[in-house]
């Protein structure tokens, strides 16, 4: 019955107490050790004052302590709110305020950046050295008795993941305990996850994709090996040494690990234990598939697709990849994928429509945002009483029912696995005193998904020094949000007589100047 990750951990810790659950550079823990640490940490959180339903931020690098912190928040009946460590002040402040964050667990490396938030939320360290100022969970939990007081039901809130849309600030996607539990079961079913698996986790635990690896470990009793990807040789050595069986990646990761400049000879490693590679978050190009095959031989490759609002939507069975290499596959178990036209009717094969999902992984909506929730989480007359996710993605199905991604219907940019709204980028560019107007746009770059370009006009009419503008942006934006291309315009074309600049024309002119086609529309080949 589980319906929650804590319930899964209770079962697995009881069934496989001595089995290694997590491994990192620093340490490893068994399932029973993990259960003890997590329930002791939850008790610490309770004593610090974290209450049922409280939103608790986690702003930590990937370590066993981070996984413990995440699980402890769940066991404390509170709600996990991941905060990407690379985010800067204004982004973090937005998440704290929007979620009504009661406490934030961080690590000592990050304290200088987040200490300004001590006035608005309670700071706690979950990793690193003891300090006089902030409670330190690894220290505290040594003196506290483990206490399993988890009492949430499947429908209760488990996490809020902030993700950008096409406009405005990131929205918090509200996820129930049941969503997480079913996500573990569903992915486990189509990937064949089992107790003997050893998952190589390069993914961040700050997003649903990475977290799902942790949930799968807990659900199936397999080992999760945490790794910060920097250089492919280190990853390949790890895969060999740890006998990794499962490697979840994204296109940007594939690009990094097969970077030809590094002259890595993949043939000198033993990847015979590798059962599968799975990828989501962007298009899997033929070069990427070739690189994976060349390095990993007969390992299965799964191409997948999904949006955080419904965790995951589709997967392509690995034996279908050669025949349908550009497809993202069929609906995941216990979900249905519909391709709907503007009238809400299902499209015929080949006809492009909107991807709409119903089923187990549909989340609860956007936190405290009924207006945006109503736009994306909607009813459909064919399914009375249900809430479906209208993705805004343009797709089509072929005669076999396999789905193909075509384009976004809106302006949202997908870069290096992150969703970025153009307005977020524009807001920062506009903060520079010499910039007058700005329009951000996507530039197709299959290696990372898309790059960000930004056209701007200046108060002086002259271009702003690129180095100066770039430095300014880097200090306010995480790397993945800094535009790769900055284009100065003397003036922007105007739209009608309202005086507003014509975004579409600005973008088209930008693409022309860059000598590239706009990144959309034509059927994926």
């Amino acid at each position, binding site marked *: 019955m589980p319906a929650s990750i804590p319930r899964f951990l209770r079962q697995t810790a009881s069934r496989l107490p001595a089995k290694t659950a997590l491994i990192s550079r620093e340490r490893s823990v068994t399932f029973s050790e993990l259960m003890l640490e997590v329930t002791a940490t939850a008790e610490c959180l309770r004593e610090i004052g974290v209450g049922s339903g409280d939103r608790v931020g986690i702003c930590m*690098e990937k370590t066993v302590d981070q996984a413990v912190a995440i699980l402890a928040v769940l066991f404390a009946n509170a709600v996990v709110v991941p905060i990407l*460590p*690379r985010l800067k002040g204004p982004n973090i402040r937005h998440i704290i305020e929007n979620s009504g964050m009661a406490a934030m667990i961080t690590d000592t*490396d990050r304290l200088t950046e987040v200490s300004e938030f001590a006035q608005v939320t309670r700071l706690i360290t979950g990793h690193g050295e003891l300090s006089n100022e902030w409670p330190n969970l690894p220290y505290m939990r040594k003196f506290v008795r483990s206490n399993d007081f988890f009492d949430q039901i499947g429908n209760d809130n488990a996490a809020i993941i902030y993700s950008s849309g096409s406009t405005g600030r990131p929205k918090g996607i509200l996820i129930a305990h049941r969503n997480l539990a079913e996500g573990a079961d569903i992915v486990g079913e189509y990937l064949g996850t089992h107790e003997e698996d050893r998952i190589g986790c390069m993914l961040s635990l700050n997003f649903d994709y990475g977290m799902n690896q942790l949930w799968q470990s807990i659900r199936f009793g397999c080992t999760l090996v945490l790794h*910060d*990807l*920097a*250089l*492919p*040789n*280190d990853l390949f*050595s790890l895969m060999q040494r740890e006998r990794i069986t499962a490697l979840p990646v994204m296109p940007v990761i594939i690009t*990094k690990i097969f*970077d030809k*400049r*590094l*002259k*890595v*000879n993949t043939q000198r490693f033993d990847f015979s234990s590798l059962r599968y590679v799975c990828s989501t978050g962007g298009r899997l190009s033929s070069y990427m598939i070739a690189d994976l095959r060349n390095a990993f031989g007969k390992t299965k490759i799964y191409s997948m697709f999904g949006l955080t609002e419904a965790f995951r939507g589709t997967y392509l069975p690995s034996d279908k990849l050669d025949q349908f290499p550009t497809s993202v596959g069929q609906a995941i178990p216990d979900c249905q994928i519909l391709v709907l036209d503007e009238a809400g009717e299902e499209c015929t094969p080949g006809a492009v429509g909107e991807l709409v999902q119903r089923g187990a992984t549909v989340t609860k909506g956007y936190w405290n945002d009924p207006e945006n929730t109503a736009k994306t989480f909607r009813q459909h007359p064919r399914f009375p009483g249900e809430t479906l996710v209208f993705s805004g993605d343009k797709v089509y199905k072929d005669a076999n029912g396999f789905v193909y991604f075509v384009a976004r219907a809106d302006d949202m940019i997908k870069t290096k696995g992150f969703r970025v709204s153009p307005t977020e980028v524009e807001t920062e560019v506009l903060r520079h005193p010499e910039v007058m107007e700005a329009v951000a746009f996507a530039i197709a770059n299959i290696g990372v998904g898309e790059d960000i370009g930004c056209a701007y006009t200046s108060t002086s009419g002259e271009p702003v020094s690129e180095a100066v503008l*770039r*430095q300014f942006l*880097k*200090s306010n934006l995480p*790397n993945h949000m800094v535009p790769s291309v900055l284009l100065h315009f003397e003036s922007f074309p105007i739209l009608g007589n309202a005086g507003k600049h014509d975004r579409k024309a600005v973008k088209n002119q930008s693409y022309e100047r860059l000598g590239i086609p706009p990144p959309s529309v034509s059927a994926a080949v």
Partner: protein
Amino acid sequence: MNEIIQVLSDYIRNETGHSGDISPDEDLLTSGIIDSFNIVSLAMFAQERFGVELDDDDMVRNNLARLSTLAALIQRRLADKA
């Protein structure tokens, strides 16, 4: 050796906009001064700037993430050439 470290530090400051000090012994990935994209650019820059070739085996975090170890590696490769 110090000159090599200086050149590398300047490169990193230019690339990343980092304005503070860079300790030769700190792991730049851990401290967040560089990321997994920068580290490759750093290795490419080092090869070009000092006219050395780094092997497949050299391209590991233990060599490239600290200025002291990267500089030592570059010196070894320079000595190999001589």
